[in-house]
């Protein structure tokens, strides 16, 4: 079955950053442990990871240079996510994510083949990184053509992130209607 879909993504280039920008292969420092012997001034090793990241900071803050740091989440191809979470390869798991019932995850259609749900991408809101704006601008420019999520898929994504972040736990609730 094939059907026409409105594209989720638009191609862009350059340094300008916006919410929903996909920044592939972005190097980020990882500090697993506090540094040792701070006083001696000797260089120490810090880990570097390459992340496929999507910007979650609001576009208006980025446009007006209101932020020195940009918040991003990891975005994965489904097979990569399934390699860590094999149960997601089973029937029905991705459908619950697609319906927005897993707060920490959000599905976005493939930039190149949106009608194939197996080529969709999944954003993990539970793992947020923050990197300097200037650093990301230069990385974005170096990528050349890259993908930017467009409206209304951008607002849908942004709302899902907000919903994940604003969860509230209650000490008690009304008993369920059975």
């Amino acid at each position, binding site marked *: 079955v094939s059907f026409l879909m409105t594209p989720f993504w638009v191609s862009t280039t350059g340094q300008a950053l916006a919410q929903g920008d996909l920044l592939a292969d972005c*190097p*980020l*420092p*990882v500090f697993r442990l506090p*540094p040792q012997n*701070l006083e001696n*001034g*000797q*260089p*120490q*090793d*810090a*880990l*570097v*990871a*390459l*992340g496929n990241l999507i910007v979650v900071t609001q576009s208006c803050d980025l446009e007006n240079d209101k932020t020195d740091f940009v918040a991003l989440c*990891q975005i*994965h191809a489904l097979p*990569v*996510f399934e*390699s*860590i*979470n094999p149960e*997601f390869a089973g029937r029905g798991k991705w459908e619950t994510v697609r319906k927005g019932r*897993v*707060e*920490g*995850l959000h599905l976005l259609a493939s930039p190149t083949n949106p009608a194939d749900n197996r080529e969709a991408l999944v954003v*993990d809101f*539970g*793992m947020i990184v923050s990197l300097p704006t200037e650093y990301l601008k230069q990385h974005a420019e170096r990528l050349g053509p890259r993908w930017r999520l467009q409206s209304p898929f951008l607002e849908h994504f942004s709302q899902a992130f907000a919903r994940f972040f604003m*969860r*509230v*736990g*209650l*000490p*008690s*609730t009304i008993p369920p209607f059975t």
Partner: protein
Amino acid sequence: MQTGAREAEQVQREWRSRLGHEAVLPTLEPGYRHVPLNIVGTIKVRYVKTERLMPRRIIVDE
């Protein structure tokens, strides 16, 4: 058991002792594991003292 599940159980135990019944919690057990960061190497960092409120800043050598 995943860390999230352990935390959820601990919080439930605390609430149960205070309230006498189960609490309704946001999703502490996310139902999935994060894909680990793809570590590709190391950089050298040097820590130096600063005069600012935060006691130290980090210089990335390369």
